[in-house]
């Protein structure tokens, strides 16, 4: 789990083969951007994870960074 004030990412192992992602965001209308971020993340990492993102207006690069950090932390 990582957080930086206006963004929170909770990542847990998912035991089925399909990853699940829930995004709640305070900013409407960025579905394509979210899809692109998540596609990048899952292309880089072949993992099955249950991910929850609570977003208070973070930028896409920060979201990707926090996803990477959450994955890193979950492997510790």
């Amino acid at each position: 789990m990582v957080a930086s004030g206006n963004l929170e990412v909770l990542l847990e192992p998912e035991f089925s083969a399909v990853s699940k992602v829930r995004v709640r965001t305070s900013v409407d209308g960025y579905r394509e951007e979210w899809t692109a971020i998540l596609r990048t993340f899952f292309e880089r990492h072949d993992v099955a994870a249950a991910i929850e993102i609570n977003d208070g207006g973070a930028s896409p690069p920060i979201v990707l960074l926090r996803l990477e950090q959450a994955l890193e932390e979950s492997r510790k």
Partner: protein
Amino acid sequence: MKIDSFAEKTARDRARSLLDADTFRELLDPFVRLESPHLPVQEIVPQSDDGVVIARGKFGDKNALVLSLEGGFQGGSVGEVNGAKIAGALELALRDARAGKLIFPVLILDTGGIRLQEANLGLLAISEIHSAIVALREFVPVIGVIAGRVGCFGGMAIAAALCTFLIGNEVGRLGLNGPEVIEQEAGTDEFDAHDRVLIWETLGCRRRLAMGQVDLLVDDSVQAIKEAIVTRINIGAAEKQRGIVLRTREIAVQTQKIQDHATPDLEPDAEKSFSSGRGRRWYNALMENAAEHAEGKSLLVGDAQWGTETIRAISVVPNPLARFPRARQGQMGVEEGWGIARAIWEAIDSDNEPGKVKHAIVAIVDVPGQAFGLHEEQLGIHLALAAAVDAYITAREFDHPVVALIVGKAISGAFLAHGLQASEILALDDAGVEIHVMSEASVSRVTRRSLREVAALAQIAPSTARDVHSFASLGGVSRLLKADDADEPSPQSVEEVRSEILQAIRRARAGAKSPPVRLDSPAALASRTMSREVRRMLESQWSMEL
């Protein structure tokens, strides 16, 4: 050595960095998912720790509890869930301290105060935090740290003033009212919220240190803050908390500072008043010494004998001649806060003998808010209000029955300092009774919503409503009283209210007294479900050994 900035860290990393290596254990961590149920219905994304980290761990051989507010989430504001996390953890530390197990609490305060979206639920939670800090202070030093970008404001500034020892850094600010709210309420002439120099000279921790309102100023480094905490804990443990001077009890010193302060020379404004005057009228109706208080006072204090009970009644009223212009219309200002503290401590001290029947303290509440002003902030109005809070709680702890009667407005910091610490709150069932945390205009400005949206919110979130029935539905009021005319009550109505106050006094003498008992009221069982659930879950995770 590389300096490890404290201010740059998140709430969780701050807690982790202060505790001894590998001893950090978070209670109700994010995967428990105790988030605010009130934010999503207002289209705000919640977080799964609700912006507060509760951690247990060690400082050397001592057990520690670190409560860390996340300034980056909703301005570090306190709502129902995170407020219950803080209050609940302090209540468990108090329970353990009373059983001889000392846990040393540290509050990392990066907070704007009450979360406006949860309004009166946050107000109740903060009053419970105050109550726990004052009770816990008798056993261990309660340490506050103000070292984050938000600073520490509102009801949590009062909590900071209640701490035994307060550590700040150059990043931190401390004050009752934030600059934007003062500007909104009192105008740019009173306080220009864009004047950064003015803000820091008034609210910065360096200034607070000079005023004796912060005890130690340290560098923005984890090492410096940890060293200050550990040093203070070791002193506190050795002294066993006896003989320590608490700043909320320095009544004579602080009153002198206020007298020496040059106040603005403004003409008294007699007719402009937004107070109903009910505080004075009900005081006069219930008390016999009304003649002593004809005018020229903003604080009415008097004793009366009601049957076997000796009553000390306190009411804050408009006074066009008051020295501080922002407190002339019935607001709670620096003189009123310290005056309440003095009145209550007189009763505590005079009754502090074995076998003596203790005064019942009756707060007659009609306070349209705290005084929003530059001079108030310069003098530390948060501390004046904390002195009143401390006195009410201490009276209760010393077995004085404390009863509040709301006859008019009961608003925000003023209500925290005058009424909310009563063992029981009675209120007139009347449309002129209002309980809320901020004017609509300020709520609109701070939350960036239109006035229409703010008004619409009250329909879906009762904690943001202003009427007495909504507040009673949160368990905030034990009895709603009928009066034939709340502005000009008949003698019969006055006698009925007097009888209700006496019954509440008898209940207070007989039973449990601290505000957490409000959580067991029938209304709270239905409406404060998260306040209760958080405490229940916290207790189940509390005692696992490190």
